[in-house]
């Protein structure tokens, strides 16, 4: 799947600060055209790994390649790459426009000619002459996007771009990122806003304790791989025994007085027949789609080996007829 042309290819990335392991071996591939949601709780290693991807931090071990080039070897690896880590930062004593002029000069290649359009894109034309020291957090976020656009990036790395924005600003930011992605830009979007990621990303990677614990497509989630079902019958005890023996069902358990399990559609059809044949009548058999939030909390809370991860692995290993699409489970 990965190749030298991948927008981002990270292998075995480790960062230690003394005894503290901030990133414990990240493997991540972002193909050209992907809009990847990069998720993880605070302290999971998102920002540290993003900094290593941009060459700001030297990894203890592992490699980063941006379009096949090493950002630690030369800043030329950042040609066609832009973005910001944590809050974008500017010189507070200079105006927004002057900051962009400085950054355009540091970019070269005619970036200065794109200042007006970048300011227009983020709706900062009217405040471009004001000192950045007087900007709100949201305005700085937008100036950060404008600064990124100066580079005409093919790859955009954004760390919590909607943080501090009001609802309208968040909506506009989502639209902007979506539009950039629709125009062909590859985007890595680190975010805490799961709905935002589900709305604008086509793939998701979840990091926990410095490791990627899940990589997969949003489409795979939507197709129902790993759908949770709740079953109520005339004899739940017997039904649970039948479910436990039924192929294609995993994580069978009692939950809120019902039998819960995870399965694909074909396996559920077979289960319905088996229950009836065993004299167990169905009162309720309701699917509950596994959304990104379910997956995120399953993977990032508790011991991090929640049922959904195990289920995803089990479903991935199950016969194709019972698992209609691929699931890329973390190793």
């Amino acid at each position, binding site marked *: 799947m990965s190749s030298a042309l991948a927008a981002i290819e990270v292998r075995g990335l480790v960062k230690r600060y003394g005894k503290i392991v901030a990133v414990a071996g990240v493997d991540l591939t972002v193909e050209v055209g992907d809009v990847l949601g990069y998720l993880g709780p605070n302290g999971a290693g998102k920002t*540290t790994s993003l*900094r290593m991807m*941009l*060459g*700001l*931090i*030297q990894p203890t071990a592992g490699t980063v390649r941006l379009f096949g080039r090493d950002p630690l070897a*030369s*800043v*030329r690896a*950042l*040609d*066609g*790459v*832009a*973005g*910001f*880590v*944590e*809050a*974008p*930062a*500017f*010189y*507070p*004593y*200079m105006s927004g426009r002057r900051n962009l002029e*400085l*950054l355009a*000069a*540091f*970019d*070269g*290649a*005619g970036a200065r000619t*794109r200042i007006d*359009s*970048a300011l*227009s*894109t*983020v*709706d900062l034309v009217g405040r471009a002459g004001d000192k950045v020291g007087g900007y709100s957090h949201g305005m700085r976020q*937008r100036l950060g996007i404008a*600064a990124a*656009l100066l*580079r*005409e*990036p*093919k790859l955009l790395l954004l760390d919590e771009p909607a943080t501090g924005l009001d609802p309208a*600003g968040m909506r*506009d*930011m989502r*639209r*902007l990122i979506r*539009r*950039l992605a629709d*125009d*062909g*830009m590859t985007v890595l979007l680190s975010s805490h806003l799961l709905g935002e990621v589900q709305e604008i990303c086509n793939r998701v990677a979840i990091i926990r304790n410095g490791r990627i614990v899940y990589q997969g497509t949003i489409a795979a989630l939507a197709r129902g791989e790993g759908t949770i079902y709740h079953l109520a019958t005339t004899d739940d005890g017997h039904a649970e025994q039948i479910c436990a023996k039924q192929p294609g069902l995993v994580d069978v358990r009692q939950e809120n007085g019902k039998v819960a399990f995870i399965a694909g559609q074909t396996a559920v059809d077979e289960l319905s027949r088996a229950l009836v044949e065993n004299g167990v009548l169905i009162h309720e058999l309701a699917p509950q789609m596994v959304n990104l939030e379910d997956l995120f909390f399953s993977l990032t809370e508790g011991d991090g080996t929640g049922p959904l991860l195990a289920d995803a692995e089990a479903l991935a290993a199950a016969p194709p007829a019972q698992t209609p699409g691929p699931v890329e489970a973390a190793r």
Partner: protein
Amino acid sequence: MSATVASGPARAQPAGVERRRPGVGTVYRWELAKLRYQKRTYLGLGAAILVPILFALAIHFHHNRHRGGGFAFSDYLSRSGLALPLVILLFGAIWLFPLIVALVAGDIFASEDHNGTLKTILTRSLERHQIFAGKALVAATYAAVAVLLGGTVAIIAGTVQSGFNSLQSLSGTIVSAPKALELVYVSLLVYLVPIAAIVCLGLLLSTVTRNSAAAIVGTLMFSLLIQLVGVLPGLSGTTPYLLSTQFNAWQGLLRTPIDWEPIVRAVWVCALYGIPALAGAFLIFLRRDVAGG
């Protein structure tokens, strides 16, 4: 935000097409531009201008009551305006010029940490060594401008106060005013040698501490402490090799014939202070993780 993306996405650079890239000159120009926006720039240059004027005023009001001060050229302050820049050089070595130099050299990297802007500029199209070189050159430029400006103001203020007259050298010979003016400017250039070492120390502290106040105060404290070393009992043997001593090397120019020995010594002694400091700052900046901001 507008609904349209005016610039659109990037198009892949065709293979073999080299983009025109910025260099050290770009950093240098923009660092100079940034200095124009910062108050500390004007504080330093203001001090370099104000102190000679205050000296000239002091001479004007007190020369009848207080003749001489027992230091080089002090007796000439009221007889030749060209003595004033030399006296400023003598007193400026104690804290004035080290402080002015530290204001920029100590701040130039640390302020990037303070503002969180290091990550901003390091993710553009400039290599770290280019950014370092540009910043170091600007710190050196500022120091040179401050010294030359202070000296020039002292020449003007001194001339206004005491006239453009001949000067008596340290060997007792009389030097004509034009020749003395030439020697004053060469003295200012020689003075830049220890100043350059102070710049390097400021740059080192700026990269190490990542804190402007600590770097500025640290640079000044180093300069003051090393002067104390020279007056401590039993350490007088170290005096020729102290950085503070090199601030007097220009006095060799005011002897007849010119005594080059202190000037040559100043060059290599200052190199011993400055080059390791500069190399340390360079390596730290090149290898450091940019984890904050």
